[in-house]
């Protein structure tokens, strides 16, 4: 291959907003309901029903727009995007074409190649569609409209990215920003964040863009990276063999590692947009924007900077802890309750991460409270429990958010600080293990480890190992 090609990528990212109800009706957005139990005349497109905008959707959309340096459209409207498909009961999707809520933003990303800005063309509000299930037995399709009308924002980037690495950095940036705002949990696997990749290639130095394709069905960062590599290669092969890239929508099959062209929903992508007459214009004054601006949280970069100055914990810990809003909130709240930052960070970095991984959970699923973590740390600080008991208590706390003070009390896990009782046990252990005692006396230092172990066992783990060690040395 003699020619050098540059990959040009723009993304369309759909994010499901964390509202309790749908965008235009009072139906629940909760997951896992029986099919069609979260539906009403509005979200099933019945004639005569009237959609009314959920204010929270607007506030989240504006918050995301402000956080991504967009200009907020202070006179904004909804439009109808017309197409026929059974997952869409109205035969149109309520979306925004002419006056989207946010425009002209940008976010900064960082990769090995350095820092750069990715432009955001626009962000618009729209409704999700229902779910189609194909019934092989009866040769028909079944529709569940529980997702119909769930609020989405679509974030459309400029074609500013040049590599899979930049795409991942951009998505991470969006995810962090939106999670910190509490506007969505942004889980790719579960579909609350979906990315379509628009990709074209051109010879290095060329001014014009090549013909682009749109890739769908990407539900992990790894799949996105593989799809980008695959599509770049496919387009290069086409051009090298004198063929043309067709502008089309393709579906990525991550198992096969290849994509195929989708049949288009219509023979032509002619959506005949027009203003939705059911929904009145949204007029936002400066005071409203200021109110949302005031509610913006401290975002990840600022937080990382502050942690570096305020806490004596490793940079890696800071990166992991601030990588999840839930984790960062938990860390700060526990420290505020008196937990020493280093110790709080250790509990999060070691035991919490281990249990999350073992249980296949995300930091967002953490159930224990900062109060209980602070109590556990205080129990170890005062040597009321030893470290192995603390780990045991932590596991229960992780699973059920138990109050560690009560739990330790109820289960009788407190370290026995009664020297008399401990001395008695140590004496018994010495009496029962003459061989080890002799070994130790003959200079086998290691033999004491066995005796400590036996004592801890006899004490059901409730002794301070340091104290046991000291007593053994004294009595031997």
């Amino acid at each position: 291959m003699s020619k050098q090609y540059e990959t040009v990528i723009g993304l369309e990212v759909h994010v499901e907003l964390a509202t309790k109800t749908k965008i235009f009706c009072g139906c629940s957005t909760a997951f896992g309901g029986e099919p069609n139990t979260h539906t009403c005349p509005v979200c099933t497109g019945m004639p005569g029903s009237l959609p009314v905008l959920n204010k929270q959707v607007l506030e989240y959309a504006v918050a995301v727009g402000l956080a991504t340096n967009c200009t907020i459209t202070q006179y904004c409207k909804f439009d109808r995007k017309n197409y026929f498909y059974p997952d869409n009961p109205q035969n149109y999707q309520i979306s925004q074409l002419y006056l989207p809520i946010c425009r002209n933003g940008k976010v900064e990303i960082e990769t090995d190649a350095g820092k750069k800005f990715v432009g955001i063309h626009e962000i618009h509000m729209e409704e999700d569609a229902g779910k189609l299930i194909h019934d092989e037995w009866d040769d028909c399709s079944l529709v569940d409209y529980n997702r119909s009308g769930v609020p989405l924002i679509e974030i459309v980037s400029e074609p500013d990215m040049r590599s899979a690495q930049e795409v991942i950095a951009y998505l991470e940036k969006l995810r962090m920003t939106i999670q910190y705002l509490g506007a969505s949990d942004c889980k790719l696997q579960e579909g609350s964040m979906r990315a379509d990749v628009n990709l074209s290639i051109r010879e290095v130095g060329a001014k014009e863009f090549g013909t682009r394709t749109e890739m769908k069905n990407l539900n992990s960062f790894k799949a996105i990276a593989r799809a980008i590599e695959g599509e770049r290669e496919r387009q290069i092969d086409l051009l090298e063999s004198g063929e043309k890239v067709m502008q089309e929508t393709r579906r990525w099959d991550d198992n096969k590692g290849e994509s195929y062209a989708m049949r288009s929903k219509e023979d032509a992508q002619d959506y005949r947009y027009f203003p939705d007459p059911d929904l009145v214009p949204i007029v936002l004054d400066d005071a409203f924007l200021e109110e949302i601006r005031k509610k913006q949280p401290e975002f990840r970069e600022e937080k990382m900077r502050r942690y570096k100055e305020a806490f004596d914990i490793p940079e890696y810990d800071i990166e992991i802890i601030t990588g999840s809003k839930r984790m960062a909130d938990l860390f700060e709240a526990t420290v505020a309750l008196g937990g020493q930052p280093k110790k709080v960070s250790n509990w999060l970095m070691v035991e919490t991460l281990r249990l999350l991984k073992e249980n296949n959970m995300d930091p967002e699923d953490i159930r224990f409270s900062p109060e209980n973590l602070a109590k556990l740390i205080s129990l170890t600080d005062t040597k009321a429990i030893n470290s192995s008991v603390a780990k045991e208590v932590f596991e229960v706390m992780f699973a059920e958010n138990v109050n560690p003070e009560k739990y330790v009390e109820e289960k009788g896990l407190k370290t026995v600080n009664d020297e008399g009782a401990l001395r008695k046990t140590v004496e018994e252990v010495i009496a029962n293990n003459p061989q080890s005692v002799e070994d130790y006396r003959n200079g086998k230092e290691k033999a004491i480890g066995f005796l400590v172990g036996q004592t801890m066992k006899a004490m059901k783990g409730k002794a301070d190992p340091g104290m046991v060690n000291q007593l053994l040395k004294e009595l031997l």
Partner: protein
Amino acid sequence: MANIISDETIEYVGILAKLELSPEEKEQAKKDMGSMLDYIDKLGELDTEGVEPMSHAFPVKNVFREDVVTNQDMREEILKNAPGEKDGMFVVPRTFE
């Protein structure tokens, strides 16, 4: 009639509307659409210089609802509108992308 609808146009509109038209229906639809466009052209004669495009007849703005669940399960009622029902879902002709 000033507006003449071509065969291609009526074909295309038929595809977009997912309508299968017989040759007679196509001829009728061409005539109907032509006269509708003539009527719109008549409106076009009005001088609208400086008039803002309007999408609503009433000067109403900012109608919102709070994010509170108000709808209970009404599946049974909703499914009465379905062309067919199976396992609590709407049955539609097999549709696959």
